[in-house]
């Protein structure tokens, strides 16, 4: 037992001594979570619309008030058509519109007149802006028609937003209403990236065993009066402790610095983390047993982790056809259960956890069987 702890102590010391890899394993996940979580705020993004209103006739005021009432657009004004184009080219705005001088005059005189739209880079935002802006024109035309027939009796009725008419009832059918369910982007990617980095911190010691075998230092360890099994187990324990430490740091730091809500169930969260680390180590052992050198193993494993993260939706939430391959990755089950925990779905989390536990079990059996190959001295 003492051997185990001594070996564990030195392994931890070795890991902690390398400041740079510490920075990489603790700092990089937090940095990436910050960048991606904030960079991909898909929800509630307003369409930044730049407007050049050249018209100073009676309709100008109604255009302004219509635009101000729109909650889907954030409107700012340019002072020339060139200004609109410039803002669009610099991508300071998502959508541009130019309302020509004499717009009011032409409309009231019954002449034809046209606004100019400048669609931007993002097609979905273009659709929104176009729908909202053409809405003004449609309402205007409708009121012109009605007022010309003198049925409504008021020729000066100008377009404006009316309260919700309840004209359209929208039914959203899927249980996970948006791409990310009820979670924020920050939560979604926090889960995905913590899992990914757990994989990275759970590989080093295993692959270093290969290196030690090739350098013959493993033979020296075996020559000591301590049982080799205890020494190896101690090293693995050190790595496990570090991985757990990493998870705690990422969870706490993201919670207190970025305000990520990990769900209230810290016990289950802990279980997910432990199971993920266990399966990551087991996977590392299997990969190591199939590789000739530490370097090959590391490359193979890193590639595997990136592919698994991508396929399980950890980099882009919607991976199209590849989503069918998701359940064959560990990340799918572990980040899935964390997401369920975050959204407070205990039953769903239990299902996902069950899946994760099964995978971990299978991998651990494989790992125990292949471990002999990794530390074989011949």
């Amino acid at each position: 037992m003492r051997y185990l702890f001594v070996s564990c102590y030195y392994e931890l010391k070795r890991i902690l001594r390398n400041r740079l890899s510490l920075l990489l394993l603790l700092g990089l996940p937090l940095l990436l979570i910050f960048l991606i979580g904030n960079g991909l705020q898909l929800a509630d993004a307003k369409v930044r619309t730049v407007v050049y209103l050249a018209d100073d006739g009676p309709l100008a005021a109604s255009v302004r008030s219509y635009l101000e009432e729109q909650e889907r657009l954030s409107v700012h004004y340019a002072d020339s058509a060139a200004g609109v184009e410039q803002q669009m080219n610099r991508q300071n705005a998502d959508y541009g519109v130019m309302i020509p001088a004499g717009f009011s005059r032409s409309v009231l005189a019954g002449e034809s007149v046209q606004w100019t739209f400048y669609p931007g880079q993002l097609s979905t935002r273009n659709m929104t802006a176009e729908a909202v802006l053409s809405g003004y024109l449609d309402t205007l035309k409708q009121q012109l028609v009605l007022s010309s027939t003198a049925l409504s009796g008021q020729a000066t009725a100008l377009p404006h937003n009316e309260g919700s008419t309840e004209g359209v009832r929208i039914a959203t059918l899927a249980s996970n209403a948006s791409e990310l369910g009820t979670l924020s982007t920050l939560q979604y990617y926090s889960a995905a990236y913590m899992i990914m980095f757990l994989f990275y911190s759970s590989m080093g010691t295993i692959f270093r065993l290969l290196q030690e075998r090739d350098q013959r230092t493993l033979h020296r360890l075996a020559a000591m009066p301590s049982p080799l099994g205890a020494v190896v187990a101690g090293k693995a324990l050190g790595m496990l402790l570090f991985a757990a430490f990493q998870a705690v740091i990422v969870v706490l730091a993201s919670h207190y610095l970025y305000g990520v809500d990990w769900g209230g169930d810290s016990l289950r969260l802990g279980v997910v983390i432990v199971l993920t680390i266990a399966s990551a180590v087991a996977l590392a052992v299997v990969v190591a047993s199939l590789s000739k050198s530490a370097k090959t193993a590391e490359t193979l494993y890193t590639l595997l982790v990136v592919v698994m993260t991508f396929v399980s939706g950890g980099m882009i939430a919607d991976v199209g056809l590849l989503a069918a391959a998701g359940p064959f990755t560990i990340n799918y089950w572990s980040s899935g259960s964390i997401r369920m925990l975050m959204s407070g779905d205990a039953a769903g989390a239990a299902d996902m956890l069950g899946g994760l536990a099964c995978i971990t079990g299978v991998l651990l059996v494989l790992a125990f069987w292949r471990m002999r190959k990794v530390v074989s001295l011949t």
Partner: protein
Amino acid sequence: MNSIIIAWMMVRRTIGKPKGVLLYIILPVIVISVIIGLFHPEPSIKQVILLNNDKGELGQQLSASLGGLEGIELAAGADLTAEQLRALVESGKADAGIIVPEDYTASLYARQAEPLQLLRAKEELWNVSLAVKLEAQDGMLRKLAAAAAAQGSAERDATVRGWLEEIQGSGIGYVKEQSGQVLDVTIMVIGMMLLFVMLLANQSILTVVQDREQRTMQRMFTAPVGAGEIALGNFLGSVLLGTMQQVLILLTTRYLLGFDIGVSLPRMLLVMECFLLSAVGIATAVAAVVKNISNFGYVNNLVVSPTCILGGCFWPVALMPEFMQKLSGFTPQRWAIIALEESIRGATVYELALPLGILLLFAFVLLGFGATVLQPAREASR
């Protein structure tokens, strides 16, 4: 001449073995092909099924007014029931469904609320826009119908139809300026190419650092070659590697996958070479600060992935919040993407002076900072 030999040696060391070819040539091609396969063609056309149960005429008018929406294909679901339509949307066979209720026309004339139904699998931006459009059309019909309601049942349909025609025929409208929208998948492909160029630049600088650490560089200096020739040779090697990678990626995507980025090959190479210079600059600057050569890979991870995210390699910067868009101006990736976007929109070489100049400035400053890497006697502290 000596420089060319050094450059050639560097190429052989980096991609001379199967593993090098796999990592720096084949992997990039595969990744980019997968991206094109996954996300192209886009934007995808959304299938919307409209179920018109209306006994009157206005339902027909409504569906007519919804035709011709950009990115949406409207189909009539004449023989479907509401339940079947719901099932279709739920299973994803249709992207959205619209149900016009049986008494739609009658309720409009009676000024009663008989709402339309919009069924969607999940809330997405495009169907939010569809809802906006639907609400607007419904609101218009509602007003017209209310105004015509006073007339007899035979005339009011004709009146509303007349008004609608008048509205359609009125000269008030809008034109769309074609701004040369760059597809998301193109940006992703460009971003991935930038990422792989950076990785390759790192690898080639790593060989230089290894030369220095293993004293190979000192031996090179004892040979009758000038320091300038050595520097030039190492530099040419990086450029050669980057160019080979780029050309292969471009040829594969264009001729095997039939995917056209929209930039001519020489233009692409021009921008990429400028970017390569700044990538080499970053790598040498990193190599100059790293204390332990085995940490070089780690530090590069710390530099490459965040700057690629910030620079807009993986999704358009327009999606990012304001402060991140400003920060992205400090990454060379951003300026390479700007240069290529402008090229896709048809800019001439002269119009690219600003982004390319900034890229070269990045390279100049960073290379100056990192030039110490090439000092043979300098040694990383261990």
